[in-house]
C-alpha cells in the first residue's frame, strides 16, 4: 500500500496508544450453570406468559368496565381508559423485557470483530456498470431521437397540470372577506351567549363584556336565524368583540378617535392581530389585554397599541355610540381589517 498516489504526503505518526485488543471472553452464569440456564428460561417464559395474561385482562376490562354517560370510575378517573391503557402497556412491556432477558442471559454473547469494507465498489464492477448504462443509452437512442425525448419530457411536465387544477377544490377565493366584517352602522353590541343588549349605565368601571353583533341572535322575516351553521361560525370568527369600561381620564384616544367611546366604554376586536387567537385576558388595573397564545399585549387605554409581544398591528377598535333606546351600537364598521395580517394587505 506504500505506492498510493498520496505517498508524497508525510506518513501519519504511529498510534500513541497500542491497540489493546479484545479482553478474553468470560462466560455468564447461564453459560456454565445448567440450573441458572433453566431459571433464565423460566423467567423469559413467565414474562411472555404474563404478557398473555395482560392481553386477556385488556379484553376483560373492555367488556366489564362501563363507558358512556355513567362510566365506572376509580379514584375519580374513568376506569375503562386507565385499565385499557395499563393492560395494553404492560402486555407490550412484558414482551419487551422478556426479549431483553432472553438476549442477555441465553443468546450467544461472544464478542466479534467485523472490519469495515471500503466504500467504493471494485474497479471491474464500476467499469461494468458504466458500460451497461452506456449500452442502454445507445440502444434506446434517446440522444439520436430528440422527438421522443422532448415529447416524453413534455408529457411528464404536463402531469403537474391536473395537480394544480385540483387545488381549486380547496374552496372559492376569499375575495374581500378577509378585509370585512358584518359590523356596520347601527348594529347593537350584545353580550355573547345570551344576546343581551348593553346599556352604558349597566357597565361599571373595570368591567369586561365579551360581545357579538346583535345580527347573530336575530331572525329573518320567516323566523329563521339570519346566520347559522358554517356561515355563523365564519362571521363570528371575525366579528367577536370585547367591550371594556375604564376611567375616562385614563384613556388617551387618538385625535380622530375622541368620539369612538361612550363614557369610558370602548369596544375592540377580540381577534389578535398576530395569528388570530381570541383574546379576553384583560387586566382591569393596567388596561392591558394579553393574548394567551404568544403573549402579545395591547394597551386598551391607548388605542390598542402593542406594548409587548409578536403582534405587529394595534388591535382594531370599533367606534360605538348609543341608540335612541340607550343601548350600545356600532357607529361605523371596523375601519381596518381585523385579525392577523395577510398577503394582500401588505
Amino acid at each position: 500500500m506504500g505506492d498510493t498516489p498520496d505517498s508524497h504526503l508525510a506518513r501519519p505518526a504511529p498510534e500513541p496508544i497500542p491497540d489493546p485488543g479484545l479482553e478474553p471472553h468470560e462466560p455468564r452464569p447461564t453459560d456454565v450453570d445448567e440450573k441458572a440456564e433453566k431459571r433464565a428460561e423460566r423467567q423469559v417464559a413467565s414474562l411472555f406468559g404474563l404478557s398473555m395474561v395482560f392481553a386477556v385482562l385488556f379484553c376483560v376490562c373492555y367488556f366489564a368496565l362501563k363507558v358512556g354517560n355513567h362510566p365506572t370510575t376509580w379514584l375519580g378517573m374513568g376506569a375503562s381508559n386507565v385499565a385499557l391503557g395499563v393492560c395494553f402497556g404492560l402486555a407490550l412491556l412484558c414482551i419487551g423485557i422478556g426479549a431483553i432477558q432472553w438476549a442477555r442471559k441465553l443468546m450467544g454473547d461472544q464478542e466479534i470483530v467485523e472490519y469495515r469494507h471500503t466504500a467504493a465498489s471494485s474497479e471491474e464492477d464500476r467499469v461494468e456498470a458504466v458500460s451497461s448504462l452506456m449500452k442502454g443509452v445507445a440502444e434506446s437512442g434517446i440522444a439520436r431521437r430528440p422527438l421522443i425525448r422532448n415529447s416524453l419530457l413534455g408529457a411528464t411536465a404536463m402531469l403537474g397540470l391536473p395537480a394544480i387544477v385540483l387545488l381549486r377544490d380547496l374552496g372559492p377565493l376569499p375575495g374581500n372577506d378577509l378585509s370585512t366584517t358584518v359590523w356596520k352602522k347601527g348594529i347593537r353590541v350584545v353580550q355573547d351567549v345570551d344576546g343581551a343588549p348593553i346599556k352604558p349605565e349597566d357597565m361599571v368601571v373595570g368591567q369586561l363584556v365579551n360581545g357579538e353583533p346583535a345580527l347573530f341572535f336575530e331572525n329573518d322575516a320567516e323566523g329563521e336565524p339570519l346566520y347559522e351553521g358554517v356561515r355563523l361560525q365564519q362571521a363570528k370568527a371575525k366579528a367577536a368583540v370585547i367591550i371594556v369600561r375604564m376611567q375616562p381620564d385614563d384613556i388617551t384616544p387618538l385625535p380622530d378617535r375622541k368620539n369612538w367611546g361612550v363614557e369610558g366604554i370602548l369596544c375592540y376586536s377580540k381577534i389578535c392581530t398576530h395569528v388570530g387567537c381570541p383574546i379576553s385576558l384583560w387586566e382591569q388595573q393596567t388596561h392591558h389585554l394579553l393574548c394567551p397564545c404568544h403573549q402579545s399585549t395591547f394597551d386598551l387605554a391607548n388605542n390598542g397599541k402593542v406594548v409587548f409581544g409578536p403582534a405587529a398591528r394595534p388591535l382594531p377598535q370599533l367606534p360605538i355610540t348609543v341608540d335612541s333606546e340607550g343601548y350600545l351600537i356600532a357607529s361605523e364598521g371596523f375601519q381596518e381589517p381585523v385579525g392577523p395580517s395577510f398577503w394582500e394587505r401588505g
Partner: protein
Amino acid sequence: MRLLTRRISGGLSAKRRSRFAAPVVLLLGLLITGGAYAALAPANANTKTDDATTIAKGRALFLVGCASCHGKNAEGILTVRGKNYGPALAGVGAAAVDFQVGTGRMPMAQPGVQALQKPPAYNADEIEALAAYVASLGTGPSIPSADQYSGKVSNQELVEGGEFFRTNCTACHNFAAAGGALPGGKFAPSLVGVSAKHIYEAMLTGPQQMPVFSNGVLTPQDKKEIISYLKSSETEPNYGGFALGSIGPVSEGMFAWLGVGVLVGFAVWIAAHTSRSKKKKEA
C-alpha cells in the same frame, strides 16, 4: 438562697454576650407580650349588634388592620410615583370586603403584584363588621344571599352556564378552571374548591386584575348558572385518566419527556450490567 440568686445572675451575666442572647431575649419578650394580650384582650362579642355598633366595631378593626395602606378614612394612599399603595375603598361595597378578607387576600402579608389567598386573618363577625364599615362609606355591591349563588338549576341552565364560563372566564382561568399565568408575575387563581359565594363576589367586584362582570350585563341568574357549572364539573370524573393538573402542554410535555428519560436510563442500565462467571463449563 443568696448564693443561688448570685449564681443565676452571675451565669446570666456571663452569657449576656453570647450570640444567642439577643434572639432569646426577643423571643421571651414576644411570648410575654403575646400571652398577656391573649389573656387580657377583650373577648369578641358573639351576639349580633345593631348597625351603628357593627360599623363602629368595623371602623376600629379597620384603623388597626387596614388603615396603614388604605388611609385612616379609607381614602387610599398613593405612592410617590402616583400609583396606588392601597386603593380608596369608598364604593367598593361589602361584597369586595367579604371576598378580599374572607379569602385571606387582605390584609396582604407584604406589598406585591398580587394579593395571595391564605387563611383569613379575621373571623366571620369581624369580616361582617369590616364589610359594614366599608359599605357605609359609599354604595357598592352588597354580599349576595345564599339563594343567589346556590340552589338547583336545570340541565339547560347548566349548559348555558358552561357557555358563559367558556366565553368569559376560560381566557384567564383555563378551560378546567385550573388557573393560568398573567404578565409580570400575576396569575389567575384556580377556581377549584373556591366557595360559591366568593366566586359570585369576585365576578361582582372584580378583585385586583380581574374585570368586573356586573349584574346589569351578566345577570345574577347567569352568575348562578356559571357557579353551578363549576361546581358540577368539580365532581365530574377525569374520564381520560390522570389530568396532570389540567394545565395542558406544560405538564403533559414534562411528563412525556421525563418518561422518555426514564426509559433511556432503563435501556442504559440493561446494557451496562451483565454478570460474569469465573467458572468454566464442565465438558
